[in-house]
């Protein structure tokens, strides 16, 4: 078995630490606001992401109202609709999911799960959050700027993104969007370098790489990917800003707009698409890999069983991460790029399905012969498996170049990506919040509210997005504020749209219930104790709950085993914490 391992290692001497090594806050302001404690920063990231995510959620209601009942709401004209989809899409993908998984869970969990006291560069970590907040504020400002936010779609394709036929194209909208993205990337880079170095350098004694919980593997790999992928977006954003503000022509060919010859010439719109998707495809996995990691730990913990095939799981994460850099042009099959690229990108794309499928099998095989506690984190994990498998399988349609030709740019695509990178990761986020909330606050979230939240969200989201595939198959294009009278669209399709919209509003209401639960349980929730789930990983073994600054009191924990010693035959309890010494080595 080499150095992997689920076997307990030999004892390692304890490590002392000076009190002086950490910066200790001296005032309320440095403790809760300008904090350098990764846990506080993680909570700040999470709350900010959830707040801006609420904006995206409200936008989705407005879009659904328009699609379900076109013509009823005067204030949603085509321009407003395009602004809504753009802001909704960008906020959900970048400012909510990326920030929450990496900035939120990454900050909170990396030091705790690895037995470190904090991130290695706490000050830079603090800056990372404040720059992220600034990025969010700049984005929000575009709602109030003259001309409103950009309506170019979250893909921001030029030339239209900076021309007058698109909302915000010749006003502030697109400029603020690009600036905000640049800020986000700068902030993320500060955090990302921190997470990477912390994982590589600050693990406690005994915590070999192959003993790390899969949560950390997921977040770590996603962070490395983000560090490699975001620069492409950064460059694209800067070049587009130059095109828009200084009249350069990186992405702008000679063109005639509304009868006017423009002075642009010689640039390539397709170049932007390559830069965007070189970022955009890995981005999907930047969101998915942390979800994969976290859900593995949720399933193992609540099925009381070791994760099945740990090494396969680690390698699958790493391989998916690597492969995801050579599949980007599957978003461009009908972009007009050279058709021969189709052969290459279809092949690489379908190959990714194999390690992905292995992960699904291993989750199922972890449930198999387990001892499944159907509590809230487990329910959300099960919801994740269903929606992720569904969305992953429709990915095989869109990845298989020729099948994508009729389906691309239709509602089939909207249904697919919502299932796989909207609903599925959100399921994991909720599962994770129910799972770790007791560690963060010392109290459990209310179970009854949680159950309602789960069933409404899971079944509702499925009802929204499953039938939507068939609208796309029929030929309904995406990004249409109103399909109107179209020869091939029967009346029943309008009925379906109205149905989807009603369900979307109900699902939205359930999220408000969750928010309420989040605050209500802060005071009224059941006391959790240090380790309510009987979990093995280090964050549950802290001397205090919630953990104090520096996490571990005087002595760092020492790790003797992998993270998945659940139901070990012969053990007294059905879990053996990572820092529990093997019987022989115990003093």
């Amino acid at each position, binding site marked *: 078995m080499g150095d992997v391992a689920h076997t307990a290692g030999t004892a390692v001497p304890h490590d002392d630490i000076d009190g002086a090594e950490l910066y200790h806050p001296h005032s309320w302001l440095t403790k809760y606001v300008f904090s350098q404690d990764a846990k506080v920063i993680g909570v700040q990231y999470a709350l900010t992401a959830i707040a801006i995510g609420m904006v995206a959620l409200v936008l989705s209601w407005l879009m659904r109202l328009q699609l379900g009942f076109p013509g009823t709401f005067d204030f949603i004209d085509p321009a407003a609709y*395009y602004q809504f989809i753009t802001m909704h899409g960008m906020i959900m993908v970048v400012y909510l999911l990326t920030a929450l998984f990496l900035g939120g869970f990454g900050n909170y969990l990396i030091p705790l799960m690895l037995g470190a006291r904090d991130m290695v560069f706490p000050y830079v970590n603090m800056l990372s959050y404040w720059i992220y907040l600034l990025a969010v504020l700049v984005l929000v400002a575009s709602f109030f700027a003259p001309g409103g936010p950009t309506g170019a779609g979250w893909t921001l394709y030029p030339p239209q993104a900076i021309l007058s036929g698109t909302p915000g194209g010749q006003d502030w909208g697109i400029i603020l969007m690009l600036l905000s993205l640049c800020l986000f990337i700068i902030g993320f880079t500060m955090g990302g370098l921190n997470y990477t170095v912390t994982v590589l350098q600050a693990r406690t004694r005994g915590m070999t790489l192959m003993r790390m919980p899969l949560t950390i593997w997921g977040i770590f790999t996603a962070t490395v990917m983000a560090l490699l992928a975001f620069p492409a977006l950064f460059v694209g954003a800067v070049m587009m800003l130059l095109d828009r503000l200084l009249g350069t022509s990186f992405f702008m060919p000679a063109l005639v707009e509304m009868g006017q010859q423009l002075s642009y010439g010689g640039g390539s719109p397709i170049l932007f698409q390559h830069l965007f998707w070189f970022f955009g495809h890995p981005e999907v996995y930047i969101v998915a890999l942390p979800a994969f990691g976290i859900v593995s730990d949720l399933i193992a913990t609540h099925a009381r069983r070791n994760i099945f095939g*740990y090494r396969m799981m680690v390698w699958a994460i790493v391989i998916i991460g690597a492969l995801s850099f050579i599949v980007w042009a599957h978003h461009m099959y009908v972009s007009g790029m050279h058709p021969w690229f189709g052969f290459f990108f279809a092949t690489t794309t379908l190959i990714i399905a194999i390690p992905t499928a292995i992960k699904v099998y291993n989750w199922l095989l972890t449930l198999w012969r387990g001892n499944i506690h159907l509590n809230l984190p487990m329910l959300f994990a099960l919801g994740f498996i269903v929606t992720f498998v569904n969305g992953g399988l429709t990915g095989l349609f869109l990845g298989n170049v020729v099948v994508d030709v009729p389906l691309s740019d239709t509602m089939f695509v909207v249904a697919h990506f919502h299932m796989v990178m909207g609903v599925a990761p959100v399921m994991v986020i909720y599962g994770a919040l129910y799972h770790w909330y007791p560690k963060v606050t010392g109290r459990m979230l209310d179970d009854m509210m949680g159950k309602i939240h789960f069933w409404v969200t899971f079944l509702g989201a499925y009802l929204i997005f499953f039938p939507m595939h068939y609208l796309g198959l029929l030929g309904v294009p995406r990004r249409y504020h109103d399909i109107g009278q179209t020869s091939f669209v029967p009346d029943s399709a309008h009925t379906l749209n109205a149905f989807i919209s009603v369900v979307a509003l109900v699902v939205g209401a359930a999220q408000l219930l969750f928010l309420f639960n989040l605050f209500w349980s802060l005071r009224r929730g059941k006391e959790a104790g240090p380790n309510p789930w009987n979990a093995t990983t280090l964050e549950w073994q802290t001397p205090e709950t919630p953990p104090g600054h520096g996490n571990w009191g005087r002595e760092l924990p020492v790790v003797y085993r992998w993270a998945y010693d659940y139901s070990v035959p012969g053990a007294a309890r059905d879990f053996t914490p990572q820092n529990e010494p093997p019987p022989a080595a115990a003093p």
Partner: protein
Amino acid sequence: MAVALIMVLVAIGSVVFHWLSPWWWTPIASNWEYIDQTLIITFWITGIAFVAVVGFMAWCIFRYRHRPGQQAHYEPENKRLEVWLTVATALGVAAMLAPGLFVWSQFVSVPDDATEIEVVGKQWQWSYRLPGEDGKLGTSDVRLISDTNPLGLNPDDPNGRDDVVIEAGDLHLPVGRPVKVLLRAIDVLHDFYVPEFRAKMDMIPGSVTYFWFTPTRTGTFESLCAELCGVGHAVMRGRVVVQTEEEYQAWLQGQRTFAQLAAR
């Protein structure tokens, strides 16, 4: 118990919905029924996988749910099972990829006898150009666009003088003859999309893109724009009329050429 049951219902419900759904692709009007067939293969393989995964999951939830005295089985890995599953998945993937790539190779190989026609997108309307007597389209350049030359045709190119220019009208095509559709945009990205033909492709200002197909039945088909191109995106509609050869020729006689338009 209830959870397992609901999961089974989700799987069964999805399959039932698939079979009963009144929303399905439009009746095909081009030679690309191969694309439809690849899609059907994909539906079968992925459908079976979905039902198997969710079904197995539901069974595990039922069989291994927590009860007093229940203990999980400790088994870190099982090489044989993992290899076996990997191979089965790879076979499934290959069964979809192989026909997919085969059909794609046809999609990208334009037959030699295809007639070249041109569709031009601008905010928010389609224009068309058909080759004249000589069967060739003349060259064009955005810089030449003006009120009298809306598509920017090159007046010095003899091939272009007899080209038939259709602004804001319907595109007519003869049934049964392969066409190579050249796509051009003069302002922003657009995408010429007729669901019944199955094919679509973006048009990019500064480049000429293309796809080909053979119309296989007569009728009038609605074309839409499938690439967000600004506030008028959803109203950028057009019509393609597929006719018999005689009807088509009769229609063609009534159209004006570039030379005639320029002489106005």
